[in-house]
């Protein structure tokens, strides 16, 4: 797995090896769960994982696995296999890759350990519900759907009641599957750790406000893995504490991720996993640093709604208020906030064929940003895992033109 990660050539060094070791150990743990009498739950990336940890169930994230498949450039093969099974090539490539991978145990780590249960939270998209239905049929295991109603404009009292009630249903579901009671004290503890982890992750991302920025969004895409897969564990807290110290040190010493950083950019949507290195280099050539992104901040963006003294009671709201569960106006507000916070000169939008809820509305956000902040944006048409949707020459030309525009914009003093 190690040489297949796309980010190996980026420059945040010290923590990197630690990360690889942790992830390797995590997947070994998950794959040997059965021998150790542990249960495995597959869960969506934005799902409430804390109750699983509190009950000693190993969470496994097909989306993280999808990212690994993309980064190892194994996406086309697995996507084509799904298409041969009858799945349209227009479906989310994480879903396609995961669905076919389950039947052939392919991919960079020889497939995920089979689940004992599935936990699907639709706070990111409707795709996950359909995808998890497919897997529930395939593996014949119980499926829990944590339904987080979409927040077009408000978090209504009805939604609040419904979201909260499901937390208790979720816990009963887990107790039913495991035949054990959840320890409420342990749950409190996991909640505290999870909160601390998210907070540290936010602080890591915040170091990018320094000029030059000590890290790029490509670094964030790499270091994200733990806040996704090991959220709620002490291990992730320790890791991010270390990473934060490293970033703060670099910031203090004025070491930039991009030597001679001239332009500061914001990335929108999922990474293009199979071209990370290429993209990182392309932007670096132009002295452009992608200092922040809307994607990795999704794992700490709604933290303010968590009450550590009542995690179970407040988590429902925090999970329902996730970035992709918000109306486009709210997303645009968040983007504007990030532009101000990180002093952004331009936005790079990945128009991602795989992810309709993330991509539809991008054009409107683009217009709002142009109108309210007068900064240009670049649209890259691609797919996070399926390389067939990526045209290197086209993207390259566009990046060149975009940087030129930013340069002119800056000269003109916007």
């Amino acid at each position, binding site marked *: 797995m190690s040489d297949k990660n796309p980010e190996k050539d980026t420059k945040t060094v010290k923590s990197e090896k630690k990360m690889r070791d942790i992830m390797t150990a995590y997947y070994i743990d998950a794959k040997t769960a059965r021998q150790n009498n542990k249960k495995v739950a597959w869960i969506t990336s934005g799902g409430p994982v804390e109750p699983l940890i509190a009950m000693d169930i190993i969470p496994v994230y097909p989306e993280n696995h999808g990212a690994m498949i993309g980064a190892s450039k194994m996406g086309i093969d697995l996507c084509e296999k799904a298409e041969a*099974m*009858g*799945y*349209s090539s*227009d*479906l*989310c490539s994480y*879903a396609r890759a995961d669905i076919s991978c389950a039947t052939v145990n392919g991919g960079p780590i020889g497939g995920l350990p089979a689940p004992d249960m599935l936990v699907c939270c*639709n706070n990111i*998209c*409707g*795709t996950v*519900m*359909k*995808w998890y*239905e*497919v897997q*529930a*049929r395939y593996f014949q295991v119980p*499926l829990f*759907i944590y*339904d987080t*109603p*979409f927040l*077009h*404009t408000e978090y*209504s009292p*009805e*939604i609040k*009641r*419904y979201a909260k*009630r*499901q937390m208790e*249903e979720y816990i009963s579901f887990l107790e039913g599957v495991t035949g054990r009671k959840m320890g409420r004290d342990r749950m409190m503890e996991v909640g505290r750790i999870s909160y601390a982890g998210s907070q540290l992750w936010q602080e890591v991302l915040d170091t990018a406000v320094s000029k030059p920025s000590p890290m790029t969004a490509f670094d964030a895409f790499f270091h994200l893995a733990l806040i996704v897969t090991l959220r709620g564990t002490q291990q992730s807290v320790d890791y991010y504490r270390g990473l934060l110290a490293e970033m703060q040190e670099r910031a203090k010493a004025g070491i930039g991720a991009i030597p001679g950083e001239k332009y500061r950019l914001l990335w929108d949507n999922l990474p293009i996993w199979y071209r990370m290195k290429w993209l990182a280099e392309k932007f670096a050539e132009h002295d452009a640093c992608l200092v922040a992104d809307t994607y990795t901040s999704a794992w700490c963006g709604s933290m303010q709604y968590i009450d550590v003294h009542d995690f179970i009671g407040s988590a429902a709201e925090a999970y329902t208020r996730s970035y992709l569960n918000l*109306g*486009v*106006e709210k997303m645009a507000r968040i983007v504007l906030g990030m532009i101000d916070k990180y002093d952004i000169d331009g936005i790079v939008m990945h*128009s991602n*064929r795989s992810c*309709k*809820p993330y*991509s*539809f*509305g*991008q*054009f*409107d956000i683009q217009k709002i940003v142009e109108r309210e902040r007068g900064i240009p944006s670049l649209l890259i*048409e691609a797919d996070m895992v399926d390389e067939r949707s990526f045209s290197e020459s086209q993207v390259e030309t566009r990046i060149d033109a975009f940087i030129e525009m930013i340069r002119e914009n800056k000269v003109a003093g916007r």
Partner: protein
Amino acid sequence: MKHFHEFQQAVNDPLDYARNLKNDSGKEIVGYVCSYVPEEIILAAGAHPVRLFDTRSQIGLADLHLQSYCCSLVRGILEEGLSGRADGLDGMIFPHTCDSIQRLSDIWRMNIPAGFHLDVILPVKLDTDSARDYLTDVLRKFREDLSGSLEREITDAALEKAIATMNVIRQSIRSIYEMRSQNPRLMPGQDLYTLVRASMIMDRDRMAELLLETLAELQTKSDQAPSGKPPKRLVLAGGICNQPDIYPMIEESGGAIVWDDFCTGARYFSQMIPEGADPLSRITGRFLNRIVCPAKHMDLDSRASHLIGLVKEQNAQGVIFLLLKFCDPHAFDYPYIRQSLDKAGIPVMLMEINDPASAGGQMKTRVEAFLEML
């Protein structure tokens, strides 16, 4: 059919029909985009519900807001709004179904100022107590919000009346479907499509009357014995069918569509509103008892078993599955539905639809080959 011309006109230009209705009756016109909108509540508010489907015009303006990988239905509806053709609407209602409709609501709200805008944020699963309670809450809130937007009270008595009207419409269409299933030559499939579509566009009181008359008219015709070689009996399944040309194409190839599993077809009428307590909870009851759309979760296999049941009940020989390009919910269900049909020994053909005007010659050859095999 005596009233066919009237149905056809409404279907040809729903927004024009609505504009005229507004001028004549003074009713507010409320647009909506999916069959999970409780029409009864809109009717009870004294307004007129019109379901929007697609557009007949070239997509141009919608391209500035939606990428090319969005289904033609959502792009078409947005085009209607952006072009100003929907300006006569007093309001729009967006139920929460798929990811694309979800963003359509956002983009509409941000760009099309005409009228009020209501989201009906339904639960995504319908199989738990809390989801059912939430659905009840959502419909209650919708009643309040709509009442507020129209500044008019929505009484239980008005709801009762609307339920009765809608039940007449649903029951009549159902009877027409049944008659036609007995005798597929009773009317062309395209006419049936027009009739169902008209029921989502025309004034519902008038529609109920016309449907009863049409039913009586067809009853006298249905006694005549069918002549000629009996056609191959088919059930249509999958996504929304917005292509009237498909019906003649199948019929010319020797097939007859005897039933369907569309939200614009049988799913629209197959569930009556039950008798019982207060009208609102009965409306909720219909949504809960109805066979689900693929954007909603009820269980893992009822959509396939429902379809197999339909094929058996209607004595059909095969299924044609229409898949609208970029429609995620249906594309996710297709493989498992196909597998279940295979297991039940029911032949199925996939018909992928790229855009609303593309049922070309190649498709016809495939349909002919499929029908021959049955």
